[in-house]
């Protein structure tokens, strides 16, 4: 069976959930080989994590020479691995960085690229959601090695024991890949809540919060959910941009999305329309968000949400 390269998405060796989704999808296409680009002493730990999801091999690329540079060296590393292994496909997470790596890699390998896939079939054909979720598109790569950037939550991770054999892979990175230098890095502050793009439940707030996200946060905590926001709330300075859901923020596809005080502009819909179940609470019964919902409450979020939170907490005991 041909290898399928899966780029491990990790923070300092801690493997992120979308990687397990990629490995699950990779098993449909061939035999998953995970690629770890990171500190040499973290490779074994990452390999332990990915072998549970079927990684037969783990290529460990020591990043000590390339870590301070943006994107380009990772694309070169994948190129060299692809040339060595002739994989059936290359999968990366469809994050901004994942897509940039994939874009450069596509040019290097002369291969077609699909981004933002929400599903991948065994024959490599993909499903994407476009035009703010109003259309679904089926596509496939017709030239070279298919490079597919897959959105978080595209598959539920399924465990399957793999050999997880670690192979060190030395890369030669060109000087021109080492020109955009990361001079400072400030890790995102941990909120103690699930990561927005990975969360099963997202509770989001917009202009209707009036700037007070307490009811949103309390409901999120009662449900074990992530907190999100509309652009209006971010632009008002009520919450940092990293919480923004929509065209220019994060795209989420959780099991449950609860929009509070969010009108539902097309740019916001683009970031949440593929959520499985959508709930909205809004004072304005004309708000376009109500066109999308499975359940809507026309009411004041400052009274509705605390009452819901209290009841949820009570039922949890």
């Amino acid at each position: 069976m041909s290898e399928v390269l899966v780029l491990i998405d990790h923070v300092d060796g801690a493997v992120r959930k979308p990687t397990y989704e990629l490995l699950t999808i990779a098993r449909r296409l061939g035999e998953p080989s995970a690629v770890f680009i990171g500190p040499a002493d973290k490779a074994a730990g990452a390999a332990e994590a990915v072998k549970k999801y079927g990684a037969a091999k783990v290529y460990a690329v020591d990043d000590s020479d390339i870590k301070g540079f943006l994107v380009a060296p990772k694309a070169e590393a994948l190129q060299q691995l692809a040339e060595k292994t002739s994989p059936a496909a290359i999968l990366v997470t469809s994050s901004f960085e994942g897509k940039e790596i994939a874009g450069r890699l596509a040019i290097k390998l002369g291969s077609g690229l699909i981004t933002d896939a929400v599903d991948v079939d065994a024959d490599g054909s993909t499903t994407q959601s476009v035009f703010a979720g109003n259309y679904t598109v089926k596509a496939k790569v017709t030239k070279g090695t298919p490079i597919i950037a897959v959105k978080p939550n595209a598959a539920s991770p399924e465990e399957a024991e793999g050999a997880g054999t670690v192979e060190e892979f030395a890369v030669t990175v060109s000087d021109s890949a080492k020109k955009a230098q990361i001079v400072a890095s400030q890790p995102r502050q941990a909120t103690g809540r699930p990561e927005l793009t990975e969360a099963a439940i997202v509770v989001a707030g917009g202009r209707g919060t009036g700037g007070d996200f307490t009811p949103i946060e309390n409901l999120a905590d009662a449900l074990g959910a992530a907190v999100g926001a509309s652009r209006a709330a971010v632009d008002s300075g009520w919450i940092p941009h990293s919480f923004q859901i929509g065209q220019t923020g994060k795209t989420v596809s959780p099991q449950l999305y609860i929009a509070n005080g969010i009108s539902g502009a097309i740019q916001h819909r683009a970031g949440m329309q593929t959520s499985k179940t959508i709930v909205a609470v809004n004072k304005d019964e004309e708000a376009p968000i109500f066109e999308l919902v499975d359940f809507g409450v026309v009411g004041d979020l400052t009274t509705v949400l605390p009452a819901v939170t209290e009841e949820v907490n009570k039922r949890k005991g």
Partner: protein
Amino acid sequence: MNIVVCVKYVPDATADRRFESDNTVDREGVDGLLSELDEYAVEQALQIKEKSDNPDDVKVTALTVGPEKAVDAVRKALQMGADEGVHVTDEAVAGSDAIATSLVLAKAVEKIGDVDLVVCGMASTDGGMSVVPAMLAERLDLPQVTLASVVETQGKEVRIKRDGDVATEVVGATMPLVLSVTDQSGEARYPSFKGIMAAKKKPLETYSLSDLGVDAGEVGLSVAWTEVTETNERPPRTAGEIVKDEDGSGATALVEFLASKKFI
């Protein structure tokens, strides 16, 4: 200093966007405009010019690739304050994917010549892949300094703040380079009446593929490295239940709904 800002003519996101029978985006039948996200790129290009020691020595060229109407995107950039425009148009370009588009853009940047800075938006509002800036950097063998929420330049040095997926980073590089900016980088200006009048007299070149030395067989739908096999309009979501909150009834109903779906 020579700055090229890449702008895309896209179907209006608030209009009824659709596909043609060959599964390409309908770019003729739907009203189009300069992609909103590219306005931020034009804005940053103009600010870099205005903040430089000698703004008169900085030339901002707006570049687009697309059908006849796509020239409107360049015109808007000229009205905002760009100095010159370049429109690459050729029937063979229709249906090009990001890979072919980045080839045409790269060749156009080379044709414009002596470019210090290529500025792009973070994504288009139609295809929205967000990969063209990285592909352009790859093709031009330039550093990419992408997804900037804050841009600072000092001579040939560029520093940006980038809100990455897991960290906020400061990234630096020396021109020439490819820069892309997000909608956080600063509100784009509206063209003034004076700007609109002045734009009419600004140089606007039209190139065909052969002017750029691109073989028509390298671009377009038939040679795209990906194929769209189906496009389906999403069925409208079945109308959900909507209740009016009266004295706490909304909260109770919502809790019941969440419980029925096993979320609690």
